């Protein structure tokens, strides 16, 4: 049974009498431990797909099964628990909390997991160290460069060693050295058994993935650009 399974998932945004069909009948299955990269032109719906996968949004129609459970059958509390314990998220636009320090931002997932303070501090320190931001723990996000903010966002996503990592262009603002470091982190997480789903435009980083899916006009295509109505297994 795949960990993530989308069946005919569509997403339509209704704005001022204009309907934007972002996803139309997407079928996608991601196995436990798989490393999938998502590519596609700007505005094609990559981030939208990722928010649905991350339980931050619901499809307009279609079915989403996470770990075999139908999304619409889960309570708010269960959703929160899954997000907290199973999923790590790296947003395209970082989304750091401005009045929390770097360390507090990173500690957030552990906070909601009710991890003891000492363990939490240790995990936060390690995550920050691994993104090369250990010396900035007490800073506030507005005092950081764009790339630094992105690294903090990465640290926040991996700090709880989530079984699923959803990353939306995690290297978008980084130079090649730091980009590589972040990719190494994600790789380690994957090596530890995590399932990775990453949006990236960079073919070098896409290489790390087991497979790449392409989004065009709200539908998935495989590597060769052939349209697939039904999600492709590798």
């Amino acid at each position, binding site marked *: 049974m795949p960990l993530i399974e989308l069946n005919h998932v569509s997403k339509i945004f209704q704005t001022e009498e204009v309907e934007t069909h972002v996803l139309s009948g997407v079928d996608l299955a991601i196995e436990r431990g798989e490393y999938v990269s998502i590519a596609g032109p700007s505005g094609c719906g990559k981030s939208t797909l990722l928010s649905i996968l991350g339980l*931050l949004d619901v499809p307009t129609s279609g079915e989403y099964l996470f770990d075999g459970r139908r999304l619409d059958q889960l309570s708010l509390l269960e959703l929160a628990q899954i997000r907290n314990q199973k999923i790590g998220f790296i947003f395209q636009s*970082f989304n750091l909390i401005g009045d929390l320090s770097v360390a507090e931002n990173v500690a957030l997932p552990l906070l909601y997991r009710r991890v003891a303070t000492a363990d939490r501090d240790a995990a936060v320190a390690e995550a920050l160290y691994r993104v090369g931001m250990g010396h900035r723990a007490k800073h506030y996000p507005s005092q950081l460069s764009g790339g630094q903010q992105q690294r903090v966002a990465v640290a926040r996503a991996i700090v709880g060693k989530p079984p699923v990592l959803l990353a939306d262009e995690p290297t978008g603002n980084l130079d090649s050295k730091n980009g590589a470091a972040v990719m190494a982190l994600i790789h380690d997480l994957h090596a530890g058994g995590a399932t990775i789903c990453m949006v990236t435009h960079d073919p070098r980083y896409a290489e790390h993935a087991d497979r790449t899916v392409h989004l065009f006009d709200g539908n998935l295509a495989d590597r060769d650009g052939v349209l697939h109505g039904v999600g492709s297994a590798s």
Partner: protein
Amino acid sequence: MKALLLHELRSVLAAFRRRPLVPFIATSMLALGFAANVAVFTVISRTLLRPLPYARAERIVVPTLTFIGPGQAEDPGPAGSVELVQWKLRSRVFTAIEGVRDVYMTLRDRGEPQGIAGSTVTGGIFRLFGVRPIVGRDFAPEDDVPNARVVILSHGCWQRRFGGDANAIGRTIFLDGKPMEIIGVMPRGFEIATVDRQPEIFVPAGFSLANMPTPTSRGYHVFGRLRDGATLQQGRGELRRITADLGREYPATEQRLSADVQDLREAGFGKQRHALLVLWLMVAVVYVLACVNVASLLSAQIADERGITALRLVFGAGRWEIVRYRLLQTLITTLAGAVAGYALGRLVLRVVLANVADPKLTNPVEHVWVMPLFLLAVSLVTGIAVGLVPALRETRTRLTSALSEQSTRMSSSVRATRLREAFIVTEVALAVPLLLATAATIHQFRALQQTPLGFDTRNVLISQIVVSPKYDKVARARFARELIRRIEAMPGVETASTTTCFFTPGNTMTTSVGSDRLPEPMSVNLRRITPHYFRAMRMPLVAGRAFTDGDGVDAPPVVIISASLAKRLYPNENALGKRVLRAPPAAPATIVGIAPDVYDEGASVELQPTYYSPYLQTNNIYITIVVKTKVDPLTLREPVRRAVWSLDRDVTPSNEAALADLMHDAIGNERLQMQMLTGFGLVALLLATVGIYGMTSYAVASRTREIGVRLAFGATPRDVIREIVGRAVRSVSIGLLAGALLSLVVQRVASALIYAGAKLEWQSVVAIGAVLFAAALVAAAVPSMRTRAVQPVWLLREGN
């Protein structure tokens, strides 16, 4: 330059039109603050700052007579004819000393006789004030003789009763049945500063050393004009010396007396000053609260527009232009608030003063332009104060961070959060002392209102008469007995009596008494009553008997004393049957009864030891008729008048009222103060609540994205609500704590001013805390509930 300013003005107004809610709320809050100030400053300007209508008023002072009681300090009181004449005669420090005494008179001109508030004055009184009649002439020395035959009218009396007719001069009228000639009219606005009820008519007192009225007849409001270069202290010292000399020369009547001299303003408005300063303090805080609200709204707006401002700066706007834009914005708001507040304040004042009889309060003395100019100045200062700081800070916006917050969608910054919390803390901290003071005042008033007076106010008609001075003591006693007999015979009357109590605060007759155990005389309230008084008032005697018709002029002198007086005169003994020593020449009297202690001047006047004497034995010309009725007491007003007239056409009942109404009015000042305080307290509560609500919901709104992030990382909706509400609760708690500390400090510093003996009750503290908490909780909870209803991604997108 000018075009740019105009352009900016237009864009500010356009922004107001686009988002009218914020400027509307800001203007309304300022209007409330301004209105409270307009109301209170008008009252202050008409009292404390009132220009006194006298020539060189700063040289005029108010001498009073003080009574040196045994171990107790007595309030200064009016002087008697003896002191007045002797001070006048012996003083060197004063160029003039004159006196005024209120008298009820019956005026008969052409129609029915009417009761009139009159006064007997020493002849030089108007010269002392430096005011001359506008029509006719002043009193001449030869007018100020016993049985004077001339009078001067107040302007109001002239207008109302004589139609403002200049031919009134020279006309003869009848005062208490005696013919008198009108010789002059005082100018409009002339008033006697220390007198509550301004006299309508002035009659020369006509006494001198050679011709002195009853020595103990005190009741003169005395005024003195200090010689140039002389100080108030010198005046006080001199009058004290003279009064001490009098004590040696006239030991029978002038012992144990001393003198005090007060500043005219102090004497006139000293009592009101305390209440007015409290009100002033309250409205000042109310205004500051309104300003804090406006400042917080503005800073919220500036925070909202941070990115836009940064962009404007990037594209070449100068700092001064940014500042000017904000200043225009706040100035327009504060000016609009001032205009609305002025209108509202006038309205409030009209409503509040509608049932205030004091002409000082209702007659404007301030110049029409004073208040608008004052408001203009305050609103300009406020606009600049409130607008400048945030505007300057705005220009120092770190462009990169503002832009990066915009582009990378960071939720609110540390500084913005701190500022919002600081506003909430300030609101609460300022509101708490104000609300506590209000609660304390309400509490105090409630206690006053619920004080058991000691008698039954229901179905009692009160009416005042002045028995014609042509009657002697025996005739007056006969008049009173016959009057009561006739009234008691009327249908609807249960019983009737007379007393010499006026049932109004601060208007009482006193005397001094001693006993075999207390040789030092003490000052007590004096009530001369006819036999049925205690029955009419439903005052059950503690011991002994009431007076009877047998306690007449020829019978042995008897008295009834109040329980507290009994305790003072004969501690630890039964006072019944013992003697009361009275000021000579009166012989000692036997105590035949002990009466309960009562608040017969209203609950606001402290309980005084009281001495009841049979009217039939020792009487005077002032009589208050007390009628216990079986019907609505006011329906008996006309019948009682007819009963009086059936005995004497020249005696006119006046000030008829139900006793219950008099007791209600007796705490009128306290009620008015309580009402105003409550009004301002409510405004303060409203402002604080709106401020807390606004800031909290704004804080939540600007944390929308943060909430989305938290949800994304696994916060449950309950976690989110707890977090948001927790912050609001923390801010309000800090505010409450700060407010409580501030209250303590204020109480320490100005306890007399604010709490005036009222105790702060923990219930009020809890109630106030609950209201403010509720505002914060609702403001925080309502928007955070929304997190349950929408997908987290929306929150992430929506926030700015």
